[in-house]
């Protein structure tokens, strides 16, 4: 029984480690993006690629001009001829500059060519509000869930981050990989103001957390809370405070939204009979809407109350601290929503 060698890692370090190991193991893997490999530079928007260009050189850790359509388009082209590119958008919001290359090219290429060509690529999007305003804060999961051909991954902790990224790199399809800015665990000048920096023991070797899997991060019989990324932490905090009132809230980390493990969700709700979905992005047509609609159909007869959603209001993300705080779902709001659910809605 060989002991797995582990070490303490932040999300940024875990993500970097997944890419480093993948690049060591597979010459087809390469990175491209803005400021990701510049000598004495940032190592990408949030230090995730720091040091990789020293180890692998500036061809395999390729800095590009400020051209998001070309960054994504070049990743599509390289993937079509057998490479396994990992492209970075410095902030997830810039993906819209290259949206055609993602929605009309990467996502549809395999289908339109009837399987002749596939696009094994990863597109990394730093997401979540961080006091920089509406064009630097969007989460965007729902756009990708509505685009057949894409897979959608959104880890909340370093262990999942490393395993899911490693699996995404080895997947034959374009994977949208969301990374929450307040979970990176940046140090020094790069530390985000309101960040929660989860640090965990993470295996030093490469390992896969399979795409299409969800994870119960807290048991509970009375209500099921579905949340992703930063909202996992606020949901756990809410569950802790609910526990003091004798309410046992289950929390499921929605770490992969496409493919979606609907069975796990259905089984969970069949036991708790009450569901709250907590989402950082805007409520209307968010990823929570699809989950609510699916479960509302699958387990309708097990529901003791309507499926509730707690999400950001339908507004762009405001910058000022007081407004951003009002905008984001909070632990208190989660507790309140669960109370509402238990009173039969």
């Amino acid at each position, binding site marked *: 029984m060989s002991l797995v060698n582990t070490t303490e890692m932040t999300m940024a370090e875990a993500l970097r480690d997944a890419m480093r190991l993948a690049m060591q193991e597979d010459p087809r893997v390469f990175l491209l993006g803005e400021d990701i490999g510049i000598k004495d530079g940032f190592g990408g928007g949030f230090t995730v690629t720091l040091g990789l260009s020293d180890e692998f050189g500036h061809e395999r850790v390729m800095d590009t001009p400020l051209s998001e359509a070309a960054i994504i388009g070049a990743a599509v082209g390289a993937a079509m001829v057998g490479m396994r590119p990992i492209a970075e958008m410095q902030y997830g919001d810039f993906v819209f500059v290259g949206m055609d290359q993602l929605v009309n090219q990467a996502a549809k290429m395999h289908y339109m*060519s009837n399987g002749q060509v596939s696009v094994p690529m990863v597109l990394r999007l730093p997401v979540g509000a961080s006091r920089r305003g509406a064009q630097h804060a969007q989460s965007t999961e729902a756009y990708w869930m509505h685009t057949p051909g894409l897979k959608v991954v959104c880890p909340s902790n370093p262990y999942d981050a490393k395993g899911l990224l490693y699996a995404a790199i080895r997947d034959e399809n374009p994977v949208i990989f969301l990374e929450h800015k307040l979970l990176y665990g940046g140090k020094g000048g790069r530390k985000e103001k309101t960040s929660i920096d989860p640090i965990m023991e993470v295996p030093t070797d490469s390992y896969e957390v399979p795409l299409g899997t969800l994870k119960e991060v807290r048991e509970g019989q009375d209500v099921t809370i579905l949340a992703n990324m930063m909202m996992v932490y606020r949901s756990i905090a809410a569950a802790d405070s609910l526990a003091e009132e004798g309410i046992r809230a289950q929390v499921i980390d929605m770490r992969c939204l496409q493919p979606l493990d609907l069975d796990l969700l259905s089984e969970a709700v069949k036991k708790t009979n009450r569901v709250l979905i907590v989402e950082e992005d805007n409520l209307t047509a968010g990823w929570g809407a699809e989950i609510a609609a699916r479960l509302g159909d699958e387990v309708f007869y097990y529901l003791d109350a309507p499926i509730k959603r707690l999400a950001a209001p339908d507004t762009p993300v405001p910058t000022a601290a007081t407004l951003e705080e009002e905008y984001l779902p909070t632990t208190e709001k989660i507790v309140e929503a669960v109370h509402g659910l238990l009173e039969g809605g």
Partner: protein
Amino acid sequence: MIKYTSEQLFDMYRLMVTIRRFEDHLYQLFLQGLVPGTLHQYQGQEAVAVGVCSALQPADIIFSTHRPVGHGVAKGMSLKSIAAEIMGKADGCAGGKGGQMHLTDVSVGMMPSNAIVGANIPIATGAAIGFMLRGEERVSISFFGDGAANIGAFHEGINLAAVKNAPVVFVCENNQYAASTHISLTMKIENVADRAESYGIPGVILDGMDVMAVRETAEKAVERARRGGGPTLIEAKTYRFMGHSRGDPGKYRSEEELSEWRSRDPIPKYRAYLEAQGIDPLTLASLEESVDERIDEAVEYALAAPEPDASETYLNVYAERRK
């Protein structure tokens, strides 16, 4: 000074005649209501597809557009697989799922053609970057029109290729129109190739109706790219003899303009060149006959081919993990 073998010269003629007659035949089928979807036809531009593709090595790849039949034939696709795809049949090159604007046959280096104007430019750049990283001496070609020269993907894709010295050749088929809009309304300058200077790469303007000129220019650019000399932007001045797409009568073009360009038809021009080199017109005539036979065969095959089964709709959305 003929530097091509007669076999190469014949081949180019065969391909140009095949494209012309195949497209004409498809147009007749369209008039008979036998073409389910749309049609963007290539008559008039044959010299560009054939000139460029004949300058390639087998392992080189091309990225085509919404007007892909000429490129597909020139790169070596089977007429049957193209005809069946245009008819939406199961035996089409993409099983009927792609359609006329999405022709592909990776086995001959015809990458999936793209119905989003300009989108194949950064994709072709990425493929070239892939070749560099893999140490493969292959070249990627991006075909696009004059309309594509004004879209963001043109700027970003060519600039990235230039700064990375990627082995890609950009071929602009300037047929004077983007659908109904004449180029004089979409650009203040005359030549798309002049935009090469913005990216620090060579720009070459050539008569797109002269297959020999196209081939020679393409050979230089392709070898330059293969040797690590970076990309080239080629602008072939050409013209499409048909409307923009299926039902377009093309009234936005003057009769004079159309007949002036028809008078520079690349096929009779090349045929005259071959005859001037002493090639027997009968040989050419018999070659044309064999082309007609192959086209009839392909059309019959396509018309007789089965429709794709409804269950195909749900397949090939996601690629399976290869072990």
